């Protein structure tokens, strides 16, 4: 089923707050083999100018992919989740995510197109603090195999 081009620009209400914890950052860092002490040791992080431990560069996916699920559960989008694979991913960091951040995710459909019988849908998730400070832009292209 071809996606409706009128979906481009559709935005969803902000997510609930995700509070970034030191233990979650350390757990994620271990899982991707990121062994820099700035991910685990607050003193090491402060020594190089961060207020607290910082997350590895792809940690934002923990918050952003869940946020992007609002698109998959939108009946008007009508994507069959069982056919969806991750096509590409991009992160633009305005500053590192750090422990203590209270992040809100706002998801927008940036593009839809069809190629080789597949539906391609690009979602952009803006991660900002509760106070409105921009932290990360996470863009995901999802492929629904035809």
């Amino acid at each position, binding site marked *: 089923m071809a996606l409706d081009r009128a979906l481009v620009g559709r935005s969803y209400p902000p997510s609930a707050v995700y509070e970034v914890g030191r233990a979650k950052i350390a757990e994620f860092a271990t899982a991707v083999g990121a062994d820099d002490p700035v991910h685990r040791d607050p003193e090491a992080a402060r020594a*190089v100018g961060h207020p607290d431990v910082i997350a590895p560069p*792809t940690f934002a996916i923990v918050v952003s992919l869940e946020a992007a699920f609002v698109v998959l559960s939108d009946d008007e989008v009508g994507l069959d989740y069982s056919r969806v694979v991750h096509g590409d991913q*991009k992160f633009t960091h305005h500053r590192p995510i750090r422990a203590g951040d209270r992040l809100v995710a706002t998801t927008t459909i940036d593009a839809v197109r069809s190629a080789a019988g597949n539906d391609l849908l690009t979602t952009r998730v803006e991660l900002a603090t509760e106070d409105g400070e921009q932290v990360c832009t996470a863009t995901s292209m999802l492929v629904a195999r035809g």
Partner: protein
Amino acid sequence: MDVPAVGTELPELQLRVTRADLVRYAGASGDFNPIHWSDRVATAVGLPGVIAHGMLTMGLAARAVTAWTGDPAALVDYQVRFGRPVVVPDDDDGAELTVRGTVAAHLEDGRVRVDLAVTSGGEKVLSLARAVVRLA
């Protein structure tokens, strides 16, 4: 770090990904899609077997860049296309990954673009893999 010349190669990163790594990443990331832990489900959807999370491969590949700069916060922009799945056999060795990086361009504000080549068993698994790092 002085701004390295275009064409400068980053130290190559070689690593292995085992089933245990996939389970650990599933828990850490919250991505419990069974194609990353169940051969039964993976083969039912047409895959050769359990595959690594694309985001795990992306996360591991970032280490080639962060180890080079010595500062994870310097990686300000990072993008990949998931080209080919990394099949991870249920044995002690798992799958092999090799990450090579090359300084591809100088950008404004002391930033450089690094292009990554990420292969497993000689096959490219990520394409258009690019990192922008701030060295100033």
